[in-house]
């Protein structure tokens, strides 16, 4: 058991899986000698060599397509895209082939790969380094989209993603990479893909969030308790797709009031799907309009204004209060 940052925890998962299974290979831009621009793959090349830890040419479509080929042959590639903002060139390979080959070949061919990438704002970066566009991936049939929120669940989810028989998009909240540490057990730990987690129980309001938004969401829940005596039930989605709607629809039946938080742009974002499921499955229990606290429908601005775009504690608290105050 050691206290690790998310970067260290992901690194631990990669180390242990590579050690355990020689079919696991790591590839991407600067993942070898440099250990990744965020040091997520630090030390892997020393331990496993450059045949299993590949510094690739600068080509995202190449990385994705090459990884698909390796996966088709039976390897388990864990490919890194340096920032999610550069993954769109890889999107075509993932959508056209990774997501479809199982179906197209009637199960003869499968693509057990992971495409990891840091996403999200709040780190004073350049353009294209701060966005949150998980909806593109989640909207794609045949791809799983996972977004951890803490060192421990990042580690266990990545292990599960590597072992998953299907392609997994692993979206890492870079704002949480080094923001805090958590105890992570040395021994192997997995967490099922497709399952959300109730991280705080309460009867008054259900708040659904994931990734980097978990921290302001939990802080807002503390504040609502302290200032207003409100008990929030907070659900960490962990997997965006396939979406686990069992826990939040059940929670809605208890609280009747729902808030969804994400930093992705509002329109057609994950919140839209979550709320539709609620309306489909828990409609009669809802006591107030379901609210969203999200990024705006704009490109996230450069760093002077990025916190104007990103949902913060204040926006979450005031939306929660409005939801709680609603009377039909």
């Amino acid at each position, binding site marked *: 058991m050691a206290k690790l940052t998310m970067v260290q925890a992901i690194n631990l998962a990669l180390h242990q899986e590579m050690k355990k299974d020689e079919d696991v290979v790591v590839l991407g*831009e*600067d993942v*070898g*000698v*440099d*250990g990744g*621009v965020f040091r997520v793959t630090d030390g892997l090349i020393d331990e496993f060599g450059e045949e299993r830890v590949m*510094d690739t*040419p*600068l*080509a*995202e*479509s*190449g990385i994705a397509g090459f990884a698909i080929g390796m996966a088709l042959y039976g390897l388990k590639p864990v490919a890194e895209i340096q920032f999610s*903002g*550069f993954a769109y*060139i890889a999107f075509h390979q993932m959508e056209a082939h990774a997501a479809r080959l199982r179906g197209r070949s009637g199960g003869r061919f499968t693509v057990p790969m992971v495409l990891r990438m840091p996403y999200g704002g709040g780190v*004073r*970066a*350049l*353009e*294209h*380094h701060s966005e949150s566009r998980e909806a593109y991936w989640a909207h794609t049939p045949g791809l799983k989209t996972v977004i951890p929120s803490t060192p421990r669940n990042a580690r266990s989810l990545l292990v599960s993603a590597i072992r998953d028989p299907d392609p997994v998009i692993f979206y890492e909240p870079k704002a949480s990479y080094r923001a805090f540490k958590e105890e992570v057990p040395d021994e192997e730990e997995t967490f099922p893909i497709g399952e959300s987690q109730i991280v705080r129980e309460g009867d008054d309001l259900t708040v659904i969030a994931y990734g980097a938004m978990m921290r302001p969401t939990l802080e807002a829940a503390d504040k609502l308790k302290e200032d207003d005596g409100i008990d929030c039930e907070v659900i960490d989605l962990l997997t965006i797709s396939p979406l686990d709607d069992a826990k939040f629809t059940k929670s809605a039946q208890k609280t009747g009031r729902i808030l969804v938080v994400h930093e992705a742009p*509002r*329109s057609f974002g994950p919140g839209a799907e979550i709320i539709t499921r609620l309306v489909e499955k828990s409609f009669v229990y809802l006591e107030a309009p379901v609210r969203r606290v999200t990024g*705006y*429908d*704009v*490109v*996230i*601005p*450069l*760093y*002077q*204004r*990025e916190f*104007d*775009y990103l949902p913060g504690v*204040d*926006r979450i608290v*005031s939306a929660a209060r409005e939801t709680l105050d609603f009377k039909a």
Partner: protein
Amino acid sequence: MPRKKIDLKYDIDYLSILDKDGEVDSDLEPDIDDDRLLDLHRAMLLGRRFDERMLKLQRSGKIGTFAPIHGQEASQLGAVACLEEEDWLVPSFRETAAEIWRGKAMENVLLAYAGFNEGAHVPKGVNNLPVSVPVGTQALHAVGIGYAMKLKGKKEVAMVFFGDGATSEGDVHEAMNFAGVFQTPTVFICQNNHWAISIKRSHQTRSETIAQKALAYGMPGIQADGNDALAVYAAAKEAVDRARAGDGPTFIECVTYRMSVHTTADDPKRYRSDEEVEKWKERDPIDRFQKYLKDKDLLSDDAIEALESEIKDEIKAAVKGWEKRMAELTDKTGMFDNVFAEMPPYLAEQKEAFEKTLSS
């Protein structure tokens, strides 16, 4: 004969005019008037000093991440010096000196790196695209722009910059292929600075030169000493003239070196040796060019000193201007502007909700 060597239309030349000690090959010396030479020198020096200033500003937290140009002054300025105002500059993210040559205000450069979107805004009528961060993607734009120039019967040129790493991206190859097929007035400038973050040039492609990639797309390619302002200028002039005359695209590989960090978020000690960097110091593009200008009696130590102090003042004034601009930029709603020509109702609602969060 069933098997023989195929004669291709183009060969790949290497061009060097000033050697590493600044001695000129007078047979190859391009015809550039004295004022232009001095302008070029001034821009190189300013590019270097401004870069140094930005690094200090970054290290003290006043600006965010940026990509230094140190060592690449000749390879970008020698090229843009061949453009006319109506031509188009399509930069990547490491052409700050070229952008300044083309009229971008230093205070805007600072503003953008200090995290204000306003810094990237381009004044009406100016033909310089904003910085393009996604590697290599902008190459295709320079081909489309070139095609449009041709269609409109204009004798204009689009010049695009990218790095050695970018030549691995499909977009760059698609751009070169389109340029060849449509014979567009496009000049491709590849600043081969030997590194793409931690990936060395030899690991990026097995090609002996990057310039030879031009052959596959049916366009002339040339490798120039990128730390030799005259060689870059001469190669670029030939390419720009060719494009303007309607004779199609050219690919130029400028062999240079990234003397500094990749960006300020990078630590090159993890992947390259100090000795390698030291070796390239001897090939400094500014030292060489100054030697040449002194030999031509266009420059003296006194003149350099005076110029240094003039540049210092200019940078100081830009920093002042930038600080003033930052203080004036109080409107936080800019992110909602220019999403579309007209703001749709849902966005207007979001803007209003955002304004409410500001007042509460």
